């Protein structure tokens, strides 16, 4: 790597570290730590939401997906984010914000009892810790191949920096470092797309050169079994996406730290606007790869993005893109560590272990550090099949969790029996559908329908709760 690129990366790391340390000094109470003192403006939350959702692997994988499938890859951003962010921003987030809760399991606990709260809290803490490990390991492999960095140097550099500002500064530090990371990610990605389009001879030249199917958003299962439009619309759009944008602690927690109810709402809607732009930075380069890379037919999709960086960008600008990779990794790790710490402190330490509220700040900081340490320890064990199994297990909870959230907010008669029935029936359906090799987008839809049946049946059958209401 050229020394100018190294200098750009060092500059980015120094800026992130400086902002993180400055915000650490402003943390005095547990509310400062978990919710940034409820002072966050909408634009900072929106940028943080977007960059936390884009990991280093998604940058490479998203571009590779567009190289293989074309613009249909943008469905993950458009159908997979925009509608759910509008619904979340208008209906769910303002309610959560007004209730003053700090975690999603906390809300579900108030509606469906402590058992539902505890089950979901334990599942989420384990998943978030394991995910930190997988992010670190997979990204280290990527950095070794692209930058030639030593694997453990990358892991220790990222965890060292992230630990300092996440453990010290909590959500405020996470969000404002994410703002820097989001800016770098957009600048780098859009720069690559614009330079690529110029190099390819303009938009018309590209559309004439790539296969027609690469320029269609909705495809039938016969045209592309990876992107059946029924799965995209109903599985991704109606279930997985709302479950992520309304039920994922790493997402919801930022909005709970908003300065006002309007900021909480606007953060989701402004985030949706940014999400509309994201495919320009990561999908367009993937399609350009077909035109610009010689011998593209035989190239592995994940090699497209690094190859375009080497081919199109001069020294210095390459450093910006490499800094964007680091930014994407750091924003994911800091968000997940902070969210796991919040769930552990609010939903496990205090209600299950009888912890004292006045120790919440210390416990939260230790739990952030513990999550990163858990990720470091689990990472080498979780490569390949084990993590996929773990992620599949989490996906079994997505449909039922969304059902609990919707019923919890919209249906006053939903009760504890309904909540447990929804969880049990939804998970059982997901397991059976997965067993029969149903496409994962359809598994989400079926488990959601089953959970809804369980919710209605259980709530109506529990006459005692009905009378008490």
């Amino acid at each position, binding site marked *: 790597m050229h020394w100018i690129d190294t200098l750009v990366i060092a500059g980015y790391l120094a800026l992130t570290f400086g902002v993180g340390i400055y915000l650490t000094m402003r943390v005095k109470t547990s509310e400062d730590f978990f919710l940034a003192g409820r002072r966050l403006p909408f634009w900072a939350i929106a940028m943080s939401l977007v960059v936390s959702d884009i990991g280093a692997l998604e940058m490479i994988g998203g571009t590779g997906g567009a190289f293989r499938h074309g613009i249909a890859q943008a469905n993950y951003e458009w159908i997979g984010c925009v509608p759910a962010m*509008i619904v979340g921003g*208008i209906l769910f987030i303002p309610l959560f914000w007004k209730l003053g809760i700090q975690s999603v399991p906390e809300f579900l606990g108030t509606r469906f009892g402590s058992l539902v709260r505890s089950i979901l809290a334990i599942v989420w803490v384990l998943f978030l810790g394991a995910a930190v490990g997988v992010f670190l390991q997979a990204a280290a492999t990527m950095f070794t191949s692209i930058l030639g960095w030593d694997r453990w140097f990358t892991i220790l550099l990222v965890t060292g920096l992230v630990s300092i500002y996440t453990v010290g500064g909590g959500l405020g530090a996470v969000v404002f470092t994410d703002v820097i990371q989001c800016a770098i990610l957009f600048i780098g990605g859009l720069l690559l797309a614009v330079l690529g389009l110029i190099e390819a001879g303009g938009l018309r030249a590209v559309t004439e050169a790539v296969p027609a199917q690469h320029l269609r958003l909705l495809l039938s299962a016969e045209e592309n079994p990876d992107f059946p439009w029924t799965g995209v619309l109903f599985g991704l*759009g109606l279930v997985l996406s709302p479950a992520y944008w309304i039920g994922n602690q790493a997402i919801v927690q930022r909005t709970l730290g908003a300065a006002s109810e309007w900021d909480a709402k*606007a953060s989701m809607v402004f985030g949706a606007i940014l999400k509309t732009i994201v495919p320009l930075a990561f999908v367009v380069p993937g399609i350009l790869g077909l035109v610009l890379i010689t011998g593209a037919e035989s190239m592995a999709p994940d090699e497209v993005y690094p190859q375009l960086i080497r081919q199109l960008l001069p020294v210095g600008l390459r450093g910006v893109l490499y800094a964007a990779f680091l930014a994407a990794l750091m924003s994911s790790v800091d968000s997940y560590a902070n969210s796991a710490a919040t769930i552990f402190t609010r939903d496990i330490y205090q209600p299950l272990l009888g912890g004292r509220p006045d120790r919440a700040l210390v416990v939260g900081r230790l739990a952030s550090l513990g999550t990163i340490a858990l990720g470091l320890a689990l990472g080498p064990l979780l490569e390949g099949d084990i993590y996929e199994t773990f992620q599949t297990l989490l996906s079994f909870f997505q449909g039922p969790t969304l059902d609990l959230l919707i019923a919890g907010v919209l249906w006053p008669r939903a009760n504890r029996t309904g909540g447990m029935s929804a969880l049990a029936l939804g998970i059982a359906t997901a397991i059976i559908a997965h067993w029969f090799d149903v496409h994962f987008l359809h598994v989400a839809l079926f488990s959601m329908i089953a959970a809804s049946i369980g919710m209605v049946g259980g709530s109506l059958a529990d006459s005692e709760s009905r009378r008490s209401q």
Partner: protein
Amino acid sequence: MSPLVGTVLLSCGYIALLLWALRTEGRARSGWRDLRWWITALVAIQLLLYWWF
């Protein structure tokens, strides 16, 4: 099923979402802070994209 059916269903869904969001949000703020403008622009862009491609 044809992807055209998907585009039609998606459009109906987006229009329903827009009408619901405009009604629910109401006139909470004025000027650029009125979220109804943001949501209308977002839905219009989405419809344009899905009918274009």
